[in-house]
């Protein structure tokens, strides 16, 4: 696959340079020098072209008519290891994914994050056309999963996964398949249904009394009262049960959450109504009671729906392969990662992550530690050297001996840092807790004060006290935060900034310091690096480029760049991960690491310490020149960081060396740290927090994982929707990163809207409490005041957030 797309790329480089403005027929991305041109259209990469051909061959081109630009770019697909689904052949692994087996049918649910539109849905439900072994498939656009039923006798689980991948829907092999989300939501729907049913009927029996203006004839009043009580009982016992349970738990833990005043208000509402009705003293407040529960539950549903769409939890295991090839006397077997023992000989293929610290058994190898350290260039290791877990093998398959089991590796060590254990405290949680405490205390005090003021009249005193507790229900407060933040989360999600939960939006609005990772965050990946050379003439440089075109090493590929005329080279000799030499037009050309070039040419090279991105090249016997690679800035990032640094304290934390520091001085000043290990980044974040700053960390790799988890808000950058992201609070799509200032402004707006809602809510409570304390809170006043206050809050929060959404979605 790699060599195929490489060949396709080279063939079409010349033609594509004239087509910079063309867009890919499959995914709609702009086509650059890597474009593939066939008679059926222009494609941004070989992967897109092969998906198109596959669809055409099955008469499925209607895919392109269902939705606009439905495809997902396959640019990175060709880098994937064709054997990456081999683990699914292991019955132990397969059992974790297959959820149903009956009458020769298996059912599997794969998360396919690249599913995004109506066309995807259409295609994924036609899987049976591609393979007779697939019986039927059902896509769920909301959860981004596809459920496939297949006959295991005709098609293997692995083949199903590969079929999905070949169509551009790379399945994510999560350890744990989709959990019990539907069960939770089903129960909430039922509770809302019961509350709504009761609310409607109770209103029906309450309105005659209000319309009449005076108590109804006794036989009706009694009948309606008893019916209202009967309808409200399931609301109290079933729909509102969670509030009582939460309040009870809080009371036992000797804390007061916002659930306490809610439960108290509901209990008093129901209790007083029941007493009034059964004593024949009045009509009660059951319409307000059932309406209140109904509205509260709708707020809860809103909150839940907002973040269900993003499956988020990731563990270190998700980064590691599910199983690895272990060489034993009996031959090569697939073994689960957890079952690896020290001394096992494992074979790790290109692009696979080394699962445990191991000793290299092959002579040479190149390991890409971008995940762990952020270094862009693969590191060369020799026989007997330790390869750390988390490194990714490049070039060719390497054999190594496991030195330590997975859980003892450095990578797992970083991940078992307590920072990953503790649940993050959201400001919203503590805000609501403090607020709940004050609210309860004030309501209780007012109830007592009211009762004392009316005292000689015992009956009136009880009425006033209960009226205070009823009307002082913080329902508007409990709606304001979920509605505002839920809307913000939805809008930002549509724009490509996904929050783990809505409380993160509020945390982000309070951040005063922002730390950026460099590679992959401020700059794009190494493959698009710009190349500069020194000490080589133009003619020599051309020879070096022609030699580089014969190597598949990422650095060579960058050096070869857009070269079209590669020409013939003889005697090309590549030492994996060290360098390449060859003879072109009679000139002997050497390209590679300092030690390699020195050994090949005999010139002593005073290596620049720490300059990892420098490659050396020599033509014939002349003095070697240097070649530097620098990854280009992500488009718009310099402007974005400058804008952010005007309002926030910004840090640059890079795993790379300091050579690119001057480029970022404008935005970061002196607050730049280079050669940062994951632990260093974590330490910087902790130091900022110790100085009472609230810090957001933006990074992309596993090397930022600790810092992402420790930061008040950890934001992972993902250039590929299917890509695995470390534990974090939010994920931002790479192309949306330059719009960070817009997102930050939007979450600050959300915070202001919540404060406004709180103010409005306080005004309503003041009005209600005045009525209650003066003994004028009638059932009618309650029935009007409570829903009106809730609806005002909903209208304000959703309306203002929607109004501000235009900029975010622009």
């Amino acid at each position, binding site marked *: 696959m790699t060599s195929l797309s490489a060949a396709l790329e080279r063939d079409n480089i010349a033609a594509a340079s004239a087509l910079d403005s063309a867009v890919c027929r499959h995914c709609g991305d702009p086509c650059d020098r890597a474009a593939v041109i066939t*008679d059926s259209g222009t494609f941004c990469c070989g992967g897109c072209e092969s998906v198109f051909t596959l669809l055409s*061959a099955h008469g*499925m081109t209607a895919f392109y008519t269902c939705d606009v630009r439905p495809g997902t770019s396959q640019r990175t697909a060709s880098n994937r290891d064709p054997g990456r689904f081999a683990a699914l052949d292991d019955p132990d692994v397969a059992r974790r994914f297959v959820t149903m087996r009956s009458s020769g049918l298996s059912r599997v649910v794969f998360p396919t994050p690249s599913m995004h539109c109506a066309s995807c849905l259409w295609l994924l439900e036609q899987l049976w056309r591609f393979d007779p072994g697939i019986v039927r498939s059902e896509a769920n656009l909301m959860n981004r999963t596809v459920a496939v039923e297949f006959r295991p006798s005709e098609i293997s689980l692995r083949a199903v996964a590969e079929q999905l991948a070949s169509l551009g829907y790379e399945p994510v092999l999560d350890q744990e398949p989709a959990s019990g989300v539907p069960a939770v939501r*089903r129960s909430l729907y039922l509770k809302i249904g019961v509350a709504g049913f009761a609310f409607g009927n109770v209103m029906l029996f309450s309105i005659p009394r209000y319309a009449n203006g005076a108590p109804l004839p006794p036989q009706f009043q009694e009948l309606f009262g008893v019916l209202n009580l009967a309808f409200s009982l399931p609301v109290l016992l079933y729909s509102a049960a969670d509030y009582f349970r939460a309040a009870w738990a809080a009371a036992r833990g000797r804390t007061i959450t916002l659930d306490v005043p809610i439960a108290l208000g509901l209990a008093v509402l129901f209790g007083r109504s029941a007493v009034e009705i059964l004593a024949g003293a009045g009509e009660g407040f059951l319409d307000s009671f059932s309406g209140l529960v109904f509205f509260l539950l709708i707020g809860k549903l809103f909150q839940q729906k907002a973040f269900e769409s993003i499956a988020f939890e990731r563990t270190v295991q998700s980064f590691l392969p599910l199983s690895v090839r272990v060489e034993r006397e009996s031959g090569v077997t697939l073994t689960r990662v957890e079952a690896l023992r020290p001394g096992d000989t494992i074979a790790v293929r290109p692009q696979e992550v080394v699962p445990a610290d191991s000793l290299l058994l092959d002579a040479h190898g190149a390991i890409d530690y971008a995940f762990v350290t952020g270094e862009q260039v693969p590191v060369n290791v020799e026989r007997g050297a330790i390869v750390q877990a988390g490194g990714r093998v490049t070039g060719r398959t390497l054999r190594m001996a496991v030195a330590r089991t997975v859980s003892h590796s450095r990578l797992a060590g970083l991940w078992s840092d307590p920072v990953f254990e503790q649940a993050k405290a959201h400001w919203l949680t503590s805000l609501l807790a403090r607020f709940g405490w004050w609210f309860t205390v004030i309501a209780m005090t007012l109830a007592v004060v009211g009762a004392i003021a009316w005292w000689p009249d015992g009956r009136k005193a009880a009425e006033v006290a209960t009226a205070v507790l009823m009307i002082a229900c913080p329902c508007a407060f409990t709606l304001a935060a979920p509605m505002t933040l839920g809307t913000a989360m939805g809008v930002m999600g549509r724009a490509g900034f996904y929050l783990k939960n809505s409380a993160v939006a509020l945390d982000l609005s309070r951040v005063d310091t922002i730390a950026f990772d460099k590679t992959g965050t401020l700059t794009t990946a190494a493959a698009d690096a710009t190349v500069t050379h020194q000490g080589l003439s133009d003619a020599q440089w051309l020879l070096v480029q022609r030699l580089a075109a014969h190597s598949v090493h990422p650095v060579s590929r960058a050096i070869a760049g857009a070269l079209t005329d590669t020409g013939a080279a003889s005697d090309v000799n590549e030492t994996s991960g060290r360098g390449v030499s060859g003879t072109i037009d009679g000139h002997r050309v050497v390209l590679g690491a300092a030690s390699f070039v020195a050994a090949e040419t005999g010139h002593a090279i005073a290596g620049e310490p720490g300059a990892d991105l420098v490659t050396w090249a020599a033509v014939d016997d002349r003095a070697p020149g240097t070649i530097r690679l620098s990854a280009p800035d992500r488009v718009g990032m310099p402007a974005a960081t400058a804008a952010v640094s005007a309002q926030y304290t910004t840090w640059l934390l890079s795993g790379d060396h300091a050579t690119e520091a001057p480029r970022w001085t404008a935005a970061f000043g002196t607050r730049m740290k280079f050669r940062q290990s994951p632990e260093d980044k974590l330490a910087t974040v902790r130091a900022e927090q110790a100085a009472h700053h609230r810090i957001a960390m933006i990074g992309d790799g596993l090397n930022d994982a600790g810092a992402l988890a420790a930061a008040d808000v950890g934001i992972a950058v993902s250039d590929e929707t299917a890509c695995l992201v470390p534990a974090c609070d939010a994920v931002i799509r790479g192309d949306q990163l330059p719009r960070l200032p817009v997102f930050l402004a939007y979450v600050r707006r959300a915070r202001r809207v919540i404060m406004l809602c709180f103010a409005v809510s306080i005004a309503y409570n003041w009005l209600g409490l005045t009525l209650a304390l003066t003994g004028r809170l009638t059932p009618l006043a309650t029935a009007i005041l409570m829903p009106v206050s809730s609806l005002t809050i909903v209208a304000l929060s959703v309306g203002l957030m929607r109004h501000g959404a235009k900029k975010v979605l622009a």
Partner: protein
Amino acid sequence: MNVIILLIFAGGVVAAGFLAAFVWAVRSGQFDDTTTPALRILLEEPTKEAPLTKDVIDG
């Protein structure tokens, strides 16, 4: 008078019937995914067109 009471109970039974229908709908999973079916109904079932051969695709 009695006819009103009869009406109230008849209304209650009808409403309870709808509640039961809602409970059944939720339990049978009809509210589990509210996005996909709304789109699915708009999509056309692909006709059984003959698979294109490689020559046709390439021009």
